[in-house]
């Protein structure tokens, strides 16, 4: 049996196996840490960069970092676990290092019940002698694997790329919110004495934009005011740099206005959706329809006015009965369309004013429902004026509108003052309500040209 020159304190072979197992477990852990942790750190660094550039929000950042860290820990656990050497493997390593003839292997793997105690004691004694030859630090040093080097170097390269290269691209890629850009613009303008006033206004605007409670209309109004200020300043400004700054500010404000209007639309849409409103794609389409139905005309306002006159002649259900009566005394109404208001024809003037109103406020040429007592909304397409609260432009897709002027009695019925829903519905269906897309008879001067020509051909 082997003898040793300098016997040291003998370590029980079982504890030596445990020590070696622990050392090798640490090696496996270090290997996994060196392979997995650097990419995780590089990823987190990338996320920090994104967070700093406002590409991701706080919550996203925290969640992503937590997920990546969790996944990293899981990967380390999954990688380390199968790499922890078994007792047999450790024992074989100990045998190799100490020059034993499978003493440690037998000792660590054999079932003590199946062997003689004296044999086992003898084996333990022999193994203890061999265990003196093992020095953990010398015999089981940690050597990083090639993959660890690759991981560390790769991650460093990625981190360096993020650190050095990505900030160069940041200004190009950065998409800061509008208010941030306006704020920057305001700060730039504040440095110019002439533009301080606009700068202050811009700052006020930023404060408004940032305030979620501030109504959109107010913001939009403010934007418009500043735009006016900028426009005026641009006219006065001589300095080229200042003019450029003003241009940029105007552009930013344009963006802000779009954003506000978009958010306003969104809100409106939300409201409509919430109220189950009617959607419409009407304005342009309806214009065509109107033209066709009215047999052509010079302008939309004129058409509305003419339509009102026609209706006054009994071709329309709309209109004031008084006016109708007055209109009956004036058969040739085509002559009076677009003419100056006639004090002798108040109804007509009223129609004319109505037509002018329509002309100013809308382009679709649709008339207003006079049966409604509510004042017409401003800056709204005529087709949309018919909507009640909660209804909207987007409420009913593909809807076509016709302008209907109801006689007062019918209007009263529509208002539901005297009838129940069912009766009202039945009567409404039964009532002969003229509509504006009824072709005009050929003898009317506003009738379609082909009809008039046919009459002329017949010598009428």
């Amino acid at each position, binding site marked *: *049996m082997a003898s040793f020159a300098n016997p040291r304190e003998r370590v029980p072979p079982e504890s030596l196996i445990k020590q070696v197992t622990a050392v090798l477990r640490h090696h496996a852990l270090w290997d996994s840490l060196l392979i997995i942790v650097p990419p995780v750190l590089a990823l987190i660094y990338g996320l920090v960069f994104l967070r700093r550039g406002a590409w991701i929000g706080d919550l996203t950042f925290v969640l992503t970092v937590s997920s990546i860290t969790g996944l990293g820990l899981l990967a380390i656990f999954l990688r380390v676990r199968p790499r922890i050497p078994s007792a*047999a*493997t450790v024992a*074989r390593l100990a045998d190799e290092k100490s020059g034993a*003839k*499978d*003493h440690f*292997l*037998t000792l660590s*793997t*054999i*079932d003590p019940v199946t*062997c*003689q105690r004296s*044999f*086992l004691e*003898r*084996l333990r004694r*022999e193994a203890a002698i061999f265990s003196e030859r093992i020095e953990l630090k010398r015999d089981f040093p940690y050597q990083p694997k090639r993959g660890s080097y690759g991981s560390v170097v790769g991650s460093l390269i990625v981190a360096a790329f993020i650190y050095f290269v990505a900030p160069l691209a940041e200004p190009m890629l950065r998409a800061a919110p509008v208010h941030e850009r306006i704020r920057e613009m305001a700060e730039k303008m504040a440095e110019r004495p002439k533009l301080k006033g606009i700068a202050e206004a811009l700052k006020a605007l930023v404060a408004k934009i940032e305030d979620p409670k501030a109504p959109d209309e107010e913001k939009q109004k403010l934007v418009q005011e500043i735009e006016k200020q900028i426009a005026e300043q641009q006219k006065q400004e001589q300095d080229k740099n200042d003019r450029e700054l003003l241009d940029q500010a105007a552009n930013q404000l344009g963006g802000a206005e779009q954003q506000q209007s978009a958010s306003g639309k969104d809100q409106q849409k939300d409201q409509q959706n919430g109220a189950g409103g009617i959607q419409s794609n009407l304005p342009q389409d309806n214009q065509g329809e109107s033209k066709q139905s009215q047999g052509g005309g010079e302008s939309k306002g004129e058409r509305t006015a003419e339509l009102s006159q026609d209706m006054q002649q009994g071709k329309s259900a709309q209109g004031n009965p008084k006016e109708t009566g007055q209109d009956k005394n004036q058969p040739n109404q085509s002559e009076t369309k677009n003419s100056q208001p006639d004090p002798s024809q108040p109804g007509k003037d009223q129609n004319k004013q109505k037509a002018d109103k329509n002309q100013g406020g809308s382009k679709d040429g649709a008339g207003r429902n006079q049966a409604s007592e509510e004042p017409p909304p401003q800056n709204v397409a005529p087709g949309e004026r018919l909507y009640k609260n909660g209804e909207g432009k987007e409420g009913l897709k593909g809807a076509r509108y016709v302008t209907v002027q109801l006689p007062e009695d019918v209007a009263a019925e529509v208002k539901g003052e005297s009838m129940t829903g069912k009766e009202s519905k039945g009567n409404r269906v039964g009532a002969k309500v003229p509509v504006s897309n009824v072709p005009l008879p050929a003898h009317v001067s506003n009738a379609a040209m082909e009809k008039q020509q046919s009459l002329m051909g017949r010598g009428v």
Partner: protein
Amino acid sequence: MEPEQFQDVFQRLEAEVQKVIVGHNDVIRKVLVAFFAGGHVLLEGVPGLGKTLLVKSLSQALGMTFKRIQFTPDLMPSDIVGTEVLADTNGRREFQFKRGPIFAHVVLADEINRATPKTQSAVLEAMEEKQVTVFGESHILESPFMVLATQNPIELEGTYPLPEAQLDRFFFKLLVAPPAPPELREILRRTTGTEVADIVKVLPEDGGKLFKEMMLLVRQVMIAPPIEDYVVRLVHATQTTSQNGGQASLKQYIRFGSSPRGAQSVILGAKGHALVDGRVHVSYEDVEKVVFSALRHRIILNFQAEAENVSSDQIIAEVIKQVARD
């Protein structure tokens, strides 16, 4: 019995045999290992290498009964196991069983492949069952019982190669190689002079008891489960006929792989070797020392192997190379 005592007896036996036999230390050791493991040995070598002398010397050193049977084509089973003869006892004539030469502790079956299969099979039962049956009556052989058979690899004309079943009953097949020049010189010095070696009996009078204790000790030697697995994988690697067994590269040469007896022989042989080495546990080295002797006669090669002159030992070497220890 203590392992040291075993080691002492073993080494003395080796030393006694080596007084007569020059060289062949490995063969002597393995014969002794097989003896204490309770196995039989087939020695193969050309004539004049001292096979018979080795066996004779061993039996002398052991101090046990020794019988030699020269196998010839006309040898009958009764010549080996014995027969009933009519004998006159107190004026009465009756059949008595006349024991054959198989009834000895150490039996030398010289040139076993020269006897007919019928005679060879007579040894079969004795080797495995440690008993013989004559005229329906079984006769138990004395313990220890060991058959040491020799066969000549040349002069195959008129021989009857041992069937696989009988080969499998041999614990080891040992190849007796021609002596190296220094050994040959020593042989000449010892045999051509006046010097006569005197073999001393190593085992005491009650050698049977000691032998049994030594046999038990061999079986008590510890073997680690991973080493057992290694033996299993080695043997399994030769079994090319089984569905999942056998190494792909070896299938082309092997007709039949080793039987489970092969694995038993490997482990018992390794245990014996471990004890001789002064250990009470088996190491991988022990396994690899005995695996050739234990498996070479159990791997039956096919025609292609013979055509390409591939031997069983080459196959086993390849198996060891391919089968990992872990």
